[in-house]
């Protein structure tokens, strides 16, 4: 028997859900609103919520002062490149772990995941030194490689859980039908795993896009992505909340729009194969 839920209870829960959602979204909303205020209104107390003089001035200043497109392009290259590279490595790796597991497959998976538990700052020094040694500080290719390594455990884990859901008999049928290992992965496994691969790509693109620790520490000018763009508006010249907000809004807009259009895939990705 279905549980009887009274209309009043349903309204209460819905209101609560909206309230929590609003609370979570509020900082972003506030940032967007602030980006349309003057610097004076931005720090006004009590704060002015809607009734202020809307202005696009901050966006103009921000665009004038720094080359938004260059940061955007770096973000696209770094997030896209690291995700693509990660997928190319992770698909065969996850295939091997899901369909020809060895004695240590589980351990390897756990070990890979455990690297995510290490605080990033713990390896900042060695990686920084390696980058200096190799002359790749402030280098997009280096960041692509580093972010790929950082997100690889998650990519492998996600693909592994998706691949586990694909019946092994289908791959055996492909083998009987004369498919080489390459054809098996290319023509049978990958097309069947497209939804899983898509959500993995999406989630990792977002993770790489938002990654701030390494991008801030290892870049300065040439390879600096949008995270550095935002950071450049924080401190040294005093507090410019409105301009900082405008920069932030410009930085998060692409990923926000991408996320909005791919909500379904994202939810599937975030539930990590738990929901079949």
């Amino acid at each position: 028997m279905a549980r009887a839920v009274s209309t009043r209870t349903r309204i209460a829960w819905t209101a609560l859900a909206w309230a929590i959602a609003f609370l979570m979204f509020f900082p972003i909303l506030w940032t967007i609103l602030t980006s349309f205020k003057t610097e004076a209104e931005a720090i006004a107390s009590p704060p002015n919520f809607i009734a202020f003089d809307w202005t696009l001035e901050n966006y103009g200043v921000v665009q004038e002062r720094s080359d938004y497109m260059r940061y955007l392009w770096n973000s696209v290259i770094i997030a896209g490149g690291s995700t693509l590279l990660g997928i190319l490595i992770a698909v065969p790796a996850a295939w091997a772990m899901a369909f020809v597991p060895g004695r240590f497959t589980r351990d390897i998976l756990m070990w890979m995941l455990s690297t995510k538990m290490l605080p990033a700052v713990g390896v900042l020094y060695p990686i920084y030194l390696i980058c200096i040694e190799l002359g790749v500080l402030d280098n997009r290719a280096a960041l692509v490689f580093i972010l790929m390594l950082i997100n690889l455990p998650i990519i492998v884990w996600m693909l592994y859980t998706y691949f586990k859901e694909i019946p092994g008999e289908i791959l055996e049928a492909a083998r009987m039908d004369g498919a080489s290992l390459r054809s098996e992965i290319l023509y049978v496994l990958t097309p069947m795993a497209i939804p899983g691969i898509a959500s993995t790509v999406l989630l990792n693109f977002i993770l790489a896009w938002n990654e701030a620790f390494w991008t801030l520490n290892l870049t300065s000018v040439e390879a600096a992505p949008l995270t550095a763009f935002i950071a450049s508006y924080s401190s040294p010249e005093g507090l410019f909340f409105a301009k900082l907000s405008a920069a932030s809004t410009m930085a998060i807009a692409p990923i926000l729009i991408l996320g909005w259009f791919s909500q379904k895939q994202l939810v599937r990705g975030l539930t990590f194969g738990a929901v079949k």
Partner: protein
Amino acid sequence: MGRITLNQVSKSFGETQVIPPLDLTIEDGEFAVFVGPSGCGKSTLLRLIAGLEDVTSGQIEIDGGDVTDVPPAKRGLAMVFQSYALYPHMSVAKNIAFPLRMAGMEKADQDARVARAAEVLNLTDYLDRRPGQLSGGQRQRVAIGRAIVREPAAFLFDEPLSNLDAALRHGMRMEIGELHQSLETTMIYVTHDQVEAMTMADKIVVLRAGVIEQVGSPLDLYRAPRNLFVAGFIGSPTMNLIRGAEAEKHGAQTIGVRPEHLVPGDPDGAPWSGTVGLSEHLGSDTFLHVHGTGLADSITVRADGEVPLRHGDRVGLTPNVERIHRFDGDGLRLA
């Protein structure tokens, strides 16, 4: 051609030996059925032949050539899986053409072969559909189509009908039988259903715990089961097994009488008698489950046509003496 020979083939998973070394030959063009209860190793044996599992020891030959270390695709065999194992993202036509595409065949030749297979299997109208849009029987036919187009040396079927309902199963059984007759290609068919085995096979291989209990034609197995296991497994309803004094009268530890070799009649003067427990009236046959005979808990009788006996009626049973099977203390058939 498709003569398959297993020489001392064995398989272990870790420490567990699932198939002790065995020898078996399947002749070219033969329809061989591996039958046995679940877990008897019949599917593993098929997968060893297919190359999907590696043998632990021994040798597998196809037409005299050693294929023990040859990968599945190069053995010239085609397999139909229990789950059909169709490629869900491809149309029926692409599913059937997949092995040809993998072999690098010209597109025009592929299409011609697919069209021919689709015609044989009544799939012409469904070529553009995806497997998800087909019924179970149609999916099974696509799986068979994918096997046919390769023109393999032998077909391997792994419980192909167990996902179908009873009516469809009967139809597909006949289709596969007819296919075998028209293609004259070796087929190896795995099932736990002894009716499938009896109706389809030229040769039945009865397996238990990885060991071949008996190999022979369906009627060989029916007429002369080599031991109690085969006696109990082949035939439906199962053979009545009787121990004790009655068996000793026939110079055996156990005797077996098939339900169809018992004639019900007047209790007076019949060698055995009892009370009808359950009677099943099918019209063509009547099954009687007789209790209180002093021979076994229940004796099953299969009588032709309609027999007007009901629950609680007394009945006499006369066995066909020539068709009594005798087994010794080890369960082996006595000549």
